[in-house]
């Protein structure tokens, strides 16, 4: 029986080649998208899962009234270890704050991320040097390791694990050090590094007022995290009080600690934003919806073809086939198509994967052992077979033989309603995607065209390892730089626009607040072309500027409620600063974040080091100026020596848009796919409908209907369906995009055009699709249609 059913199935599929191809092709495309989404989902949700301690590792973070942070004081780690036996290990980790140049002969390595960890942290985070974790001797020794990749750059031919001597910084400085070995750097981990420095103990001389380490806890199994969190908060407050940091007992009530599990670190850290998580969820939902739409095509076409199969069902039933036999038969038929689609999908996915990897900056692959896909795919296959097949199978197998065998059979009203609502559903989703895409486009266009408040064009950021906290030290460097033709200005600062600034507590107008601070040098505002609102910029003419002058931005003015800021005092870092100028707000951190109240000072004793050199260079002379800089750099800045490295500020700033651009690409693909699949389904469906109605069309023509009238007749029902789909999806799209837009501090008003446009596009596409199909039926000779029986 199976053989015969198979024959019926194959011959049927072959007879309706076009529809079969559309069915399988559409499903394959959707499945390919879904497979990619699944790969990505698995990848994003399994960061650090290879760590054997995965379920027991937590970060100790601190809740301040204004913000949350993962940074905590080093002595607190010791206190936690002493007080809580349920904590197995406590480790300290610190990221590097600046770039390091490491040399071996002619091979140069620029490291941007060196992790400083203690032995416990290395154990907790599963950081294992090849050859095993070695305990450094004493408190002072540090064992330095490089990632395998970094090691390869410096020692391309190295085969053993023996330590090597390398040079640090420019070669003329003559600083050397020992690299103890190499460690595998796992990109699929929160702890990426170019190198790791391991010591026995970290932060020996640190106090409770220095939050510059991340504390990692490895808990014993079965520990109640919530109660531990409370106990750690109590301990933290007690320690702060004991060390006289953080103010009075009452003030301390506003401060607490939290435990953040390793598993949420990558996607939704408590001290950070969960945009990546939201995007991941959005993408997953997209993948599911696309698949659902393709399944609906299946269901729809199978029901549409029901009349053709009705006779078969009737005959088989008369001959004694049981209903479940027929259900199985239809499910197997659909299973075969799904199977073909999945094979096609894998091929498609493989083809698209390289572009996908580039877009999301990941390294995903389908064909590797242990890939979850190998058990997920059969599962998906069964699920889509059921989703796509169960309804048609039930409908088809439910036909009453007396009705269908009499030949006067027509599909029931019920399945007609269902079919139409499925089409409406498909188009609704397509319209939502289209509107979303258009709105994402408008917002990104707005972000690209909006005035940022500063000009990143023509600004070159130079990576540098010398510290220029004293303006007098930078002055000779600036002089030498400015001699190069084309360079208009030069400055140095603690932070570059596009990155995070430092945060510190300042008091002004009787108000105490944590605000951003940036340590700058002369010509900072001029280099970045920032607009002045009141007062003046820093100037060499005022001696006090290098001692206690400050420039604040408009937001800071509002924060402190200062009406006439010029000449007022703002206190922080044990200095009474005098405000000399107010600048207009400028968006240093993209469009998601509101411009923070910020103070700019030349003297900045408690912040980071001024190392970020920025130059304004005339565009026309850019190439020449950069070449000259490179040639003269060892003379200009000895410590960097021959290692001149730069980035264009506009490109760095552009990276803030990266996530949104990914989203735009994803939505572009999704909108295209859903519309394509929906239209594909419609195409096949109309083909079928016109086939069924061919006799009716012929009769109408004989009775005098014009071609146009017939076109209108067939088109009208689809036209109404697409309109309904638009009406359904508008509010949905509105709510969703509104929510997305609200993640931006600076955003467009909800535009109307995308709604109109998607309606026009879908209606037009529908009419074209339907008309192309109907045209064939209309052009056919009516006599032929009537003769056929």
């Amino acid at each position: 029986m199976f053989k015969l059913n198979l024959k019926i199935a194959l011959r049927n599929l072959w007879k309706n080649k076009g529809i079969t191809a559309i069915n399988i092709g559409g499903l394959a495309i959707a499945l390919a998208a879904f497979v990619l989404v699944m790969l990505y989902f698995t990848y994003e949700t399994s960061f650090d899962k290879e760590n054997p301690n995965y379920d027991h590792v937590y970060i100790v973070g601190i809740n301040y009234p204004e913000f949350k942070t993962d940074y905590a004081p080093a002595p607190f780690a010791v206190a936690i270890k002493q007080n809580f036996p349920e904590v197995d290990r406590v480790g300290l980790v610190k990221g590097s704050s600046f770039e390091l140049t490491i040399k071996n002969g002619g091979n140069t390595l620029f490291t941007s991320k060196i992790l400083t960890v203690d032995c416990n942290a290395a154990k907790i985070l599963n950081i294992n040097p090849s050859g095993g974790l070695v305990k450094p001797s004493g408190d002072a020794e540090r064992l330095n390791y490089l990632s395998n990749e970094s090691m390869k750059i410096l020692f391309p031919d190295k085969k053993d694990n023996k330590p090597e001597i390398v040079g640090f910084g420019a070669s003329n400085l003559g600083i050397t050090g020992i690299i103890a070995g190499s460690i595998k750097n796992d990109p699929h981990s929160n702890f990426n590094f170019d190198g790791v420095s391991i010591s026995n103990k970290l932060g020996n001389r640190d106090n409770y007022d220095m939050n510059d380490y991340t504390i990692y806890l490895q808990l014993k199994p079965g520990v109640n995290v919530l109660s531990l969190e409370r106990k750690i908060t109590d301990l933290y407050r007690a320690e702060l009080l004991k060390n006289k940091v953080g103010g009075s007992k009452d003030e301390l009530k506003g401060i607490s600690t939290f435990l953040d599990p390793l598993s949420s670190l990558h996607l939704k850290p408590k001290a950070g934003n969960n945009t990546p998580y939201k995007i991941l969820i959005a993408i997953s939902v997209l993948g599911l919806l696309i698949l659902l739409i393709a399944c609906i095509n299946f269901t729809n076409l199978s029901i549409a073809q029901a009349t053709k199969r009705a006779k078969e069902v009737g005959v088989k039933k008369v001959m004694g086939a049981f209903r479940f036999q027929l259900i199985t038969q239809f499910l197997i038929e659909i299973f075969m198509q799904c199977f073909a689609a999945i094979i096609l999908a894998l091929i498609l996915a493989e083809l698209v994967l390289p572009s996908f990897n580039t877009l999301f900056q990941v390294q995903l692959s389908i064909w590797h052992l242990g890939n979850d896909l190998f058990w997920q795919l059969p599962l998906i296959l069964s699920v889509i077979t059921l989703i796509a097949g169960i309804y048609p199978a039930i409908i088809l197998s439910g036909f009453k033989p007396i009705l269908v065998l009499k030949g006067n059979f027509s599909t029931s009203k019920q399945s007609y309603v269902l079919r139409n609502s499925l089409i409406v559903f498909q188009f609704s989703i397509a319209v939502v995607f289209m509107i979303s895409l258009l709105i994402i486009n408008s917002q990104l266009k707005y972000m690209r065209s909006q005035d940022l408040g500063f000009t990143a064009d023509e600004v070159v950021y130079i990576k540098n390892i010398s510290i220029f906290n004293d303006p007098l030290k930078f002055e000779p460097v600036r002089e030498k730089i400015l001699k190069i033709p084309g360079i208009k200005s030069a400055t140095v600062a603690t932070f570059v626009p596009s990155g995070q600034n430092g945060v510190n507590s300042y008091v002004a107008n009787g108000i105490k607040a944590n605000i951003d601070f940036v340590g700058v040098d002369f010509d900072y505002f001029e280099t970045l072309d920032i607009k002045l609102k009141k007062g003046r910029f820093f100037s060499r003419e005022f001696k006090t500027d290098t001692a206690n002058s400050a420039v604040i931005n408009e937001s800071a003015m509002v924060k402190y409620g200062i009406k006439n800021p010029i000449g007022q005092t703002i206190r922080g870092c044990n200095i009474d600063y005098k405000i000399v100028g107010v600048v207009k707000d400028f968006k240093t951190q993209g469009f998601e974040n509101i411009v923070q109240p910020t103070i700019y000072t030349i003297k900045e004793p408690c912040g980071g080091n001024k190392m970020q050199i920025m130059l304004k260079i005339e565009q026309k002379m850019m190439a020449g100026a950069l070449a000259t800089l490179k040639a003269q750099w060892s003379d200009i800045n000895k410590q960097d020596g021959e290692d001149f490295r730069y980035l264009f500020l506009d490109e760095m700033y552009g990276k803030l848009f990266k996530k949104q651009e990914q989203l735009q690409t994803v939505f572009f693909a999704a909108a295209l796919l859903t519309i394509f699949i929906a239209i594909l389904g419609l195409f096949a469906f109309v083909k079928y409908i016109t086939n069924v109605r061919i006799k009716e069309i012929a009769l109408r023509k004989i009775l005098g209907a014009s071609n146009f009238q017939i076109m209108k007749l067939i088109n009208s029902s689809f036209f109404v369906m697409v309109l309904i789909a638009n009406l359904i999806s508008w509010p949905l799209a509105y709510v969703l995009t509104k929510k997305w837009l609200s993640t931006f501090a600076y955003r467009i008003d909800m535009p109307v055009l995308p709604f109109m446009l998607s309606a026009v596009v879908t209606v037009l596409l529908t009419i074209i699709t339907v008309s192309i199909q109907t045209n064939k039926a209309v052009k056919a000779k009516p006599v032929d249609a009537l003769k056929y029986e």
Partner: protein
Amino acid sequence: MITIENLEKIYKTEEIETTALNGINFKIREGEFVSIMGPSGCGKSTLLNVMGLLDKPEKGSYKFIDTELLTLNDKERSNFRKRNMGFVFQNFNLIDELSVFENIELPLIYNKVAASERKKLVNEIIERMNIVNRKGHFPQQLSGGQQQRVAVARALVTKPKLILADEPTGNLDSSHGNEVMELLCELNEQGTTIVMVTHSSHDASFSDRIINLKDGHVISEKLNKGKTEELI
């Protein structure tokens, strides 16, 4: 072989109730060839459907040899049908995707006949029906008469006790119609009981007995004299 008593069948739609069968009583002996005649809407197709277990009446009794069939559940009906009955339809109802051979083979498959046995049985009947050279063809490649031959072959291949034919010549021209009627007579002579619904008194003249229906009642039952005489 068949005893039908007090059969009642009512069709209900939202507004109207139509009584299709209204107290039908008759008996059919084994080996008999019975025609059911009557005007359109008299209930003859309904009666045939009930007899073929494709439809359930509201009331009455339908005994086949000694088994009461109306109390059977769906599965039992299905089983009973495939073992004992064969169907011939006006519009042939062959499966377009299957060849002549495969169409005929289908009921054997549902009766769980082994493959080698199936081949033997199908080839036998194909020979008997004189359609050997059409064995690999698909239904659309055959004339109406040939299609009905295949349909009859399919009805016969399981060697059913009863063949139910619903206007078997309705879609055929007279020469092809006669061919099919002669085929049915031949089968009847070999011992198969046949119940046939027909409009045509010409077709009915091939049968032993004619039951006339009107408005769901049996209005007359008469022996076909010509036929009986012929037999004598």
